[in-house]
């Protein structure tokens, strides 16, 4: 009868243990972004002048990371480009990918600012068009991401536009639009704000081992038992 040397069994077991059994995971990812532009439309009052127009990265919280979870950030330049009467900013994008582990509760916010100066002594009215593209997309198991754009003048309460995606429901969501706003500018300095926030979490789901591997292991253990008995008989 052919015998199986015990050393061969142990080598096989060691090989199996080297397999990343415990860390077989499904991966997950997200990608969310926003793009913003300001345009002043209609006849502009003579008292109006545009001051600084700029972008700030106000919040950069990468959350709690574990495993190989990683985020990629693409930030607009601080200054927009002026095309005709439109101040356009580059895209602000946050994306992430994880094979095993998680990135939880990441929050990135960028603030777009349009300074409007009123050299008169009374309030003036100006028409502003805020154009935007927002998207949020999630992939795999599991991820949740949202992009929200709030807009307001000075200390006013903001309105907002929001897209939200989850691998449990709507996997991706996007909106392209514009808001036509009538702003009442007080004498002196006014600032129109658009705050973009991208909040995301993702976690790679553990995947159960295929049944074949368990049969294989059971077989190896059985073989080990046979070998032991053989030695004991001697």
């Amino acid at each position, binding site marked *: 009868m052919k015998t199986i040397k015990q050393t061969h069994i142990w080598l096989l077991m060691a090989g199996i243990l080297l397999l990343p059994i415990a860390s077989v995971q499904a991966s997950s990812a997200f990608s969310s972004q926003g793009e913003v532009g300001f345009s002043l439309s209609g006849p502009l009052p003579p008292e109006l002048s545009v001051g600084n127009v700029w972008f700030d990265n106000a*919040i950069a*919280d990468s*959350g*709690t990371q574990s495993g190989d979870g990683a985020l990629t950030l693409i930030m607009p330049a601080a200054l927009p480009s002026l095309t005709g009467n439109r101040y356009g900013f580059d895209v602000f994008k946050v994306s992430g990918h994880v094979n095993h582990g*998680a990135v*939880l*509760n990441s*929050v990135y*916010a960028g603030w777009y600012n349009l300074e409007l100066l009123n050299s008169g002594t009374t309030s003036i009215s100006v028409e502003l068009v805020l154009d935007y593209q927002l998207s949020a997309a999630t992939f795999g*198991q*599991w991820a*949740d991401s949202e992009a*929200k754009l*709030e807009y*307001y003048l000075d*200390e*006013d*309460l*903001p309105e*907002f536009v*929001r897209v*939200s995606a*989850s691998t*449990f*429901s709507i996997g991706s969501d996007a909106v392209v639009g514009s808001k036509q706003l009538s702003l009442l500018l007080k004498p002196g300095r006014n600032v129109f*704000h658009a*705050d973009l*926030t991208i*909040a995301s*979490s993702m*976690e790679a*789901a553990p995947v159960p081992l295929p049944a074949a591997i368990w049969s294989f292991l059971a077989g190896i253990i059985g073989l080990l038992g046979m070998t032991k008995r053989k030695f004991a008989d001697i």
Partner: protein
Amino acid sequence: MRLINLFLLVSLALPVFAHGPLPGPLTNVPVPEVPGLLDGSDPIVVDKNMAIALGKALFWDVNVGSDGMACGSCHFHAGADNRVKNQLNPGLKSSQLSGQSFDTLGSGSGGPNHTLTQADFPLHKLANPYDPASAVVKDSDDVVASSGTFSGEFKGASMFSGTNDQCARANDPMFHVDVSSTRRVEPRNAPTVINAIFNYRNFWDGRANNIFNGSSPWGDRDPDAGVWVKTGARSVAKQRLRLENASLASLSVAPPLSDTEMSCRQRKWPSIGRKLLLRQPLQNQKVHYQDSVFAGLGLVSSSASTELPGLKTTYKAMITKAFNPKYWSYSGTSGSFPPPPNGQSAYNQMEVNFSMFFGLALQLYQGTLISDQAPIDLVTRNVANPNAITYLKPDWSSLYPNDPAKVTQLNNGLGVFVGNHCSTCHGGPLTTTAPIVAYSKLLTPSNTNYYGSANNKIYYGVNALGPNRGGQVAGLTPAGNVVTRDTTLDPLYPAKLMDIGFANTGVADPNGDPGLGGVDDFGNPLSFSYQYQQYLAGNSAKVVDKAVNKVKACDFIYPLYDGSSTLNDPMMFTSLDAMEVDGAREGSLKNLGCIVSPLVATLNEAKIPTVATAQAALNQPKMAFATQAAFKIPSLRNVELTGPYMHNGSMASLEQVVEFYARFGNFANDNQHAFMNSISLVGSQLPLGSEAAFAKNRDDLIAFLKTFTDDRVRYERAPFDHPEVKVPNGHVGDEQAVTAGNPLQAGFAADEWLTIPAVGANGSAAPIQPFENQLQP
């Protein structure tokens, strides 16, 4: 004492239908409004239907608990719990040492993982159940309640999957079989959630405050409560929240933090939010394709042929649809938010306000659980003349035209119910005086507002709860008093202040559980009666529930003041005492519509003692209150299905309950309500004192009580349908030995599970059963 004799004579002389509230129809009884919740220019809830769906999902979702418990795990059977295995608590509310250990019950066994049998009930058993003087055969301070969580010390929870929290779990010194820990059991029986929306306060001890503060059960009493409101584009601030008539919201935020019901210790509400917000609701629980709430909103994945788990959304998405953005749209975090557990990212606004979303969603969902289609609601009543002595009398032949024997039985049963004053405490359409605000509305006269069905209208007014000013017998008036003065079985000074909606009937040793006589987490007594006593004495700092300031003394059942008396009376303020007009302190007199005291038969005067007089009398019987071992009067609606009964679950069947009352209770004590001694269920059968003498009236009374069962509850039809829930149902083994190796912890006993299948709007084919039907002998 003379006055008590007068009361007995008066009550016996009046015909049965003249005395006290009657159990009326629940149809069209208004649910008290919560100002600011759905109305006004800036409501908290902007989509009521989505908020109800959120509430239904959270109520049934086992991911809310730390190890598989949902609210529905203890409130799945007619809104209550009918499990029989591992349902015993040793009596941990007791101030006596015996409450720390399990007793041997009537079957010869007991303790953790015991399966209850008929022999175990009632827990307090007499040789002759009708004779209070007969020998006590068995007594126990154990409580039949609900098994809950293993608990542990909370560490964290995953944000996307996994039912169980990460907790440091250790062996339980109290709940175990041999060396294996078992699930802990609550110290009080789970009441039904159905119709609880009407109660002014909730929990057996009333601690679920009428005012919801957004983060705890304590209403105005909690100085740290509050919610975070977005005040500007980049600013958020903590603000006090104060929603009236939101007692179920107050209640809902307690069990998910309880270490006997649902939670590992030190878990806080933002952590529960963090666990749930990004998940699918009912993630691993099947949802019926005809669910009465979820299907209409397009949230169900299931079809007629395939039943699937989960809703097609996330909790975060439901909250953004249901709630005003100022409670969740603030970006990022704030230094004012509570700190997260070690190593975790800071909380966001939706997480720190999660307790508010949870409480209000559950309030709105449970507000749909109203069972108003029972026979007692459908029977035609005599409504022609509100001043007739037979006003509201049901005509059972309208429901059972071909069953004259049943009609006779139900008439007799109702007569026993009313004649023994059951209907006074179990009063009105809810069969409890706990719905103070709802009843005050029904009693406020109106030519247009009515309750009952449109073809059998009961107009709001002084007789709306019962003919001959029946509501007043229970202290119920348009003023909506939270306190009254009533009589006890104290042999010397029976008259005491009492909380309306609560009573001590002597179910258990008064030291076994203080009930309403307990205190809150801040050391304040729970009861309104204590606070009213302090209000009279001018100690305004002790009045922590503002409703007490509105108590109207001249609506009391038994007066505080007898101006015609020139005696020095320990139990009454008299003309010898310095008094003032009630309401003078607030600058708003409470002297209109004073009632004739139902007990003394004279008109109450709107006078309260001056502060100095009250201070001097603080320890005298005239200022005494009866709250020790008083418990919220339960509704009898669906009582056929909600056993076991009483706060300690000590009675398995309605027969045992009726026998309890027939023998005037189990434990006579000075705070016991006076009605307990005037109960007589004896019929004309002989021999006197035998079961035969009581049996007919007992059986007719029980037949009448079964007219409170709504068939939609019995068959789990809408709105009582629900998703699938797997409920822990004891552990593998018995009270002697268990199988260990629970996935939560190797040393824990393995769970057995009861699967309650998902049910849709059309209900289930088989009716749910009364508790005692599943008890083996």
